[in-house]
């Protein structure tokens, strides 16, 4: 542990002891809520919490110091009674988030999004209290309402619908696994509604499904990147938009340069020059959706070259399947030069510590096939459960919700409850979310900021920001049982309420018994005997030692069985909908993620790593196509699919795969505060309604589009417009 971190934790640990002794030194910590009178200007307190900007579950430390804000209130002074007056209020404020060094996901580090999430706490567009729709639904006109009345109205409505058709209450949420989703699940059960559905393009359902099918593992496999020597990653932008960017970037740093004699080599196959591809030593530009074919070819070549030492551990049926592939057809499907591909595979096979890491940063209709193929290849290489290989996921402290079929759920819903989900933004137009929201009898949202979907709500019961309340998050990837917890240490800014408490109040209003589980209740059964809960709170969570009874042993045998079943292993070609000449490939923005962070100015102004765009996200077009269509960077272009069209600025990306139009998510919010509303366009909007069949997840990369130039535009704002380091200085 680094020294600074050590001091930080020391200060946290010695809290109880000094809390009474005035606490002038930096060792002082006031437990839980910091009352104003105990704030000492210039003295910092560090409190553990959890980042919820994405579901990775990074443990963080929040730096709390004194702050001041202006509040308005109705004067009670006789002379000015009834008038609003402005008052200065001194309060404990969160100044900065840093990774919690004791946390095994963040390891004391934090990504851009995590750091910026403090801006969602202090976002000027946060809702100040419960809001009731005052106009036509969707018009986004609201008026404030008291909590009491809001809860009463909401429970009335829900009770009515529950009585008629409890199974048509749709609860839509995000992919996280935390106390909030747990409460939603419990509430759904208590009122007899179906289990909440997940609305997200980053729920990693394909990765989960493939692990289950191929290895019989529940949860997301843990790739031991640190100890690998040669990684071939396929389709997973694991340093940018994948399961746990901070965790994998940490591992990547160590993989590259932490060992004295060994430098990890990374080859990356993806249909986009992502930041992982940029960091890689070699980038193999795949045709979109050909990850499965590519991995099948990799397996086949390894077998052919006798570079699969543990081929014997692979079920015979699977080996036969690999040997039976038409290699030439597979290679042709990937679009990669054969010599280059063979070279890459040989390098992998000859390495002392090879690892294949596959994922679906862009989801195709055959993504599960691809990841299963990667597991098979790893099996051949002897990587399952081995150091530098794939480690089995630990039992999740909180089970994540996995049902991605939100469109179906919404389409027949009488009542809709939205929490941490923005289906109107995340789902394509073809999913008919707007119609579902119009048709539903009652729409309830727990949004903290008025977003696209909350604009359609009848009632908004704004939730606390995750930093304002107690919280426990199960990290999305962990090889040991772990839980990150955060306490409530700052006063909520506004009249908001934690979602579990709101749900409890609603349940009470509906005369239903429901008590949301607290972090402590979740954690206690998982804790070793010698680890008291107080320590967990102080350290911001726990990470169980291996060997504890709660850690399941790797089960590769049944996995092999699953793989050997021909029904679950085949290489299907990816299907694409529509008839345009280009493939649209929306991807998770390294800054704005899936668009849920678009209202944070720091992130809006953080240049996009590909195009250097700020406050705007362009569609990335390869130079050859651009020349053919006469498109220059900054021109406005129209992307047209079978279901709709969007107008976006173009960026001529020197590394774009020809025929693929990549576009980061984050633009095109209709309602999302002053920093995001009306900015840019949302590529998800025009996606065809295609699904990954094994998971039911929306296939984000399965839409064909047409591309036409509209004309010069001003929407592309680049921080740095120059792509080349050397300016031409021809001697003429």
């Amino acid at each position, binding site marked *: 542990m680094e020294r600074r971190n050590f001091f930080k934790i020391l200060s946290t640990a010695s809290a109880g002891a000094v809390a009474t002794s005035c606490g002038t030194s930096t060792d002082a910590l006031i437990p839980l809520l910091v009352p104003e009178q105990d704030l000492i200007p210039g003295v910092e307190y560090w409190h553990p919490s959890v980042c919820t900007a994405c579901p990775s579950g990074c443990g963080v430390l929040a730096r709390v110091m004194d702050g001041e804000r202006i509040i308005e209130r109705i004067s009670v002074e006789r002379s000015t009674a009834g008038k609003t007056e402005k008052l200065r209020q001194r309060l404990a404020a969160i100044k900065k988030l*840093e990774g919690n060094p004791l946390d095994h996901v963040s390891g004391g580090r934090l990504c*851009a999004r995590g750091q910026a999430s403090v801006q969602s706490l202090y976002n000027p567009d946060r809702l100040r209290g419960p809001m009731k729709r005052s106009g036509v639904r969707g018009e986004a006109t609201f008026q404030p309402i008291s909590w009491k009345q809001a809860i009463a109205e909401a429970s009335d409505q829900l009770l009515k619908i529950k009585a008629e058709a409890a199974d048509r209450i749709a609860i839509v949420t995000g992919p996280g696994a935390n106390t909030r989703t747990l409460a939603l699940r419990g509430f759904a059960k208590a009122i007899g509604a179906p289990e909440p559905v997940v609305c997200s393009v980053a729920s990693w359902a394909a990765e989960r499904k493939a692990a289950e099918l191929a290895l019989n593992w529940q949860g997301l496999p843990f790739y031991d990147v640190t100890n690998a020597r040669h990684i071939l990653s396929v389709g997973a932008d694991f340093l940018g938009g994948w399961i746990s960017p901070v965790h994998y970037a*940490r591992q990547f740093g*160590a993989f590259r340069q932490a060992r004295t004699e060994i430098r990890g080599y990374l080859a990356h196959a993806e249909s986009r020059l992502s*930041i992982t591809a940029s*960091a890689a030593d070699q980038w193999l530009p795949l045709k979109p959706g050909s990850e499965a074919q590519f991995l099948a070819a990799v397996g086949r070549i390894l077998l052919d070259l006798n570079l699969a030492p543990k081929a014997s551990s692979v079920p015979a049926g699977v080996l036969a399947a690999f040997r039976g592939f038409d290699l030439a057809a597979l290679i042709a499907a990937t679009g990669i030069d054969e010599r280059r591909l063979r070279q890459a595979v040989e390098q992998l096979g000859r390495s002392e510590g090879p690892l294949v890491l596959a994922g679906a940063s862009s989801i195709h209709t055959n993504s599960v096939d691809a990841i299963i193929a990667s597991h098979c290849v790893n099996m051949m290489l002897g990587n399952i459960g081995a150091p530098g290989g794939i480690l089995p996921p630990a039992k999740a402290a909180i089970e994540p919700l996995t049902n991605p079929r939100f469109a179906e759920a919404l389409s027949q819903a009488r009542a809709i409850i939205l929490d941490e989900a923005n289906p109107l933004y995340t789902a394509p137009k073809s999913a008919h979310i707007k119609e579902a929201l119009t048709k539903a009898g009652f729409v309830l949202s727990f949004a903290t900021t008025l977003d696209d979907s909350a604009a359609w709500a009848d009632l908004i019961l704004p939730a606390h920001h995750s930093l304002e309340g107690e919280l426990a998050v199960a990290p999305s990837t962990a090889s040991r049982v772990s839980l990150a917890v955060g306490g409530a240490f700052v006063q909520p800014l506004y009249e908001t309420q934690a979602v579990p408490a709101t749900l409890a109040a609603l349940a009470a209003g509906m005369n239903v018994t429901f008590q949301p589980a607290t972090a402590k209740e979740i954690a206690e059964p998982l804790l070793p005997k010698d680890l008291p809960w107080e320590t967990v709170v102080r350290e911001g969570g726990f990470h169980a030692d291996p060997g504890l009874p709660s850690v399941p042993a790797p089960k590769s045998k049944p996995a092999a069985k699953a793989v050997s079943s021909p029904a679950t292993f085949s290489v299907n070609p990816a299907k694409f909908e529509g008839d345009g000449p280009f493939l649209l490939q929306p991807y998770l923005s390294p800054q704005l993620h899936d668009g849920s962070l678009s209202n944070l100015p720091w992130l809006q102004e953080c240049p996009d790593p590909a195009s250097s765009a700020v406050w705007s996200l362009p569609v990335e077009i390869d130079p050859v196509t651009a020349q053919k269509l006469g498109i220059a960077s900054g021109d406005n272009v129209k992307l047209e699919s079978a279901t709709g069209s969007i107008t976006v600025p173009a960026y001529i990306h*020197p*590394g774009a795969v020809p025929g693929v139009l990549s576009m980061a998510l984050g633009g095109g919010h209709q309602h999302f505060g002053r920093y995001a509303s009306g900015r840019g366009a949302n590529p998800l909007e025009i996606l065809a309604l295609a699904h990954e069949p094994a998971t039911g997840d929306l296939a984000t990369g399965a839409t064909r589009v047409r591309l036409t130039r509209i004309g010069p535009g001003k929407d592309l704002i680049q921080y*740095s417009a120059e792509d080349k380091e050397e300016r031409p200085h021809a001697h003429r």
Partner: protein
Amino acid sequence: MPTGKETHTDQAKPHRWGMVVDLDRCTGCEACVVACHAENNIAVSNPEEAARGRVNHWLRVDRYYEGQFPDVKVKYRPVLCQHCDEAPCEPVCPVNATYHNPEGLNVQVYNRCVGTFYCANNCPYTVRSFNWFDPQWPEPMQLQHNPDVSLRPGGVMEKCTFCIQRIKRVEESADAGSRPVADGEVQPACVQSCPAEAMVFGDLNDPDSKVSRLAGDGRATKLMEELGTKPKVVYLDRAR
């Protein structure tokens, strides 16, 4: 009559702060960029101003493309104030707003700055940014402000300080405990945040510090060293 005295760099304190950026680890994720904003109260502009080139970053990640598809390479390089020993920005400031502090840091004194822009023009790394307007912080964004870092009014130049406030905090606490500052104890926000641990900060005067050892690595280069600016940021090139 002015009487203030500042010590000469030659009688420097024991520290000489420097940074190493390992480009082999750097992924270009820009966590450092946001960390820098969060730590240093850097004003955020708006789309209109951004289009005019008024985005302020004390630390940016330069990205360059090399080659043609499919052999395209991307180079990311975090560029911050290099804290040059012979900083071109310093002598040109008529009001001594930028000068060399005793620990070798190139510091910007906002209160002295009148905004001649000369320093920014003379910075070969273009790492200085200017407050074109008085910064706006819509309520309650000001709650996030780091009280250790002053807010800059419109009309003054600003730049990376190596998080001098963090250096001071550590030095004060070390002084209070009568102990030396330990290696790695001072971490600027960017270094602290970097997930790949590509950035290392420390005392270049201490031959055993991590930063000194890395600066002696065979991959070590300095940006535009040929200009004689003697930067204190060392880049470790990507291994090929």
